[in-house]
């Protein structure tokens, strides 16, 4: 209902601000881990299992993507949770970036 009221005042700066915020909150974010020459393969698998609760097969698949393609998208979703995952991965010293999922 709030959306209908706001949409009837399409020229309002408040609406533009609200729409921008909604877009930012609604846009999914990608958690991406980049390859590095230091971390051991079994360390990376262990971290993926701990942070995301992945099973061995899924964690190994992502680790191999990082190793062979230079990066892997580990998770896509709401920004706050994406930041939380990125922080945890950085805590384990994995090179992690966040990107909007355009």
């Amino acid at each position, binding site marked *: 209902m709030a959306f209908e009221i706001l949409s009837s005042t399409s020229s309002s700066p408040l609406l533009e601000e609200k729409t921008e915020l909604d877009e930012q909150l609604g846009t999914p974010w990608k958690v991406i881990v980049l390859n590095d020459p230091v971390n051991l393969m*079994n360390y990376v698998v262990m971290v993926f299992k701990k942070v995301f609760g992945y099973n061995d097969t899924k964690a190994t698949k992502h680790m191999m993507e990082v190793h062979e393609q230079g990066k892997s998208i580990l998770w896509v979703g709401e920004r706050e949770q994406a930041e939380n995952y990125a922080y945890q991965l*950085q*805590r384990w*010293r994995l090179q*992690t*970036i966040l990107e909007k999922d355009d």
Partner: protein
Amino acid sequence: MIEFSLQVEARIIRAVLPELGKLFALSVKEEDYSDHFPDIDDPDFKEAWIEGLKQEAKDDRNALARLLKSPRLKYGRVEVKEDEVEDLLRGLTEIRFTIRKTSLKKLSDEELETGLADIPTKNPEVQIGFFAYLLMAEVQERLIQEIS
């Protein structure tokens, strides 16, 4: 307590331990998390993020310091309290990054990843750094096996 013996000659361990002490001090001095922050335009959030990583890294370094000071390490014996394992795993990674950026900075990523660096032809600093790097990897690998 998790305990195991490394499959590394004790003379090699004794040779690299003094260098590891220096590298440990260097890793504390040169800590820099400023490039870790995601590309988000929010200075306050950035500061909180970096400060959080710095604070939490202290436990990791303390666990590593305890390992390096352990008198039994020079004989290849590793002993870690179970509640310190994760801290130690992270501390080991941090010191390996420090070694990479210092003693091993002249080696390519490929040489490091494949282990094909022609180490005997390198200068002593690189050689000692390389063995320190491998020793820390060995401890990490064994720890992961122990907790798996």
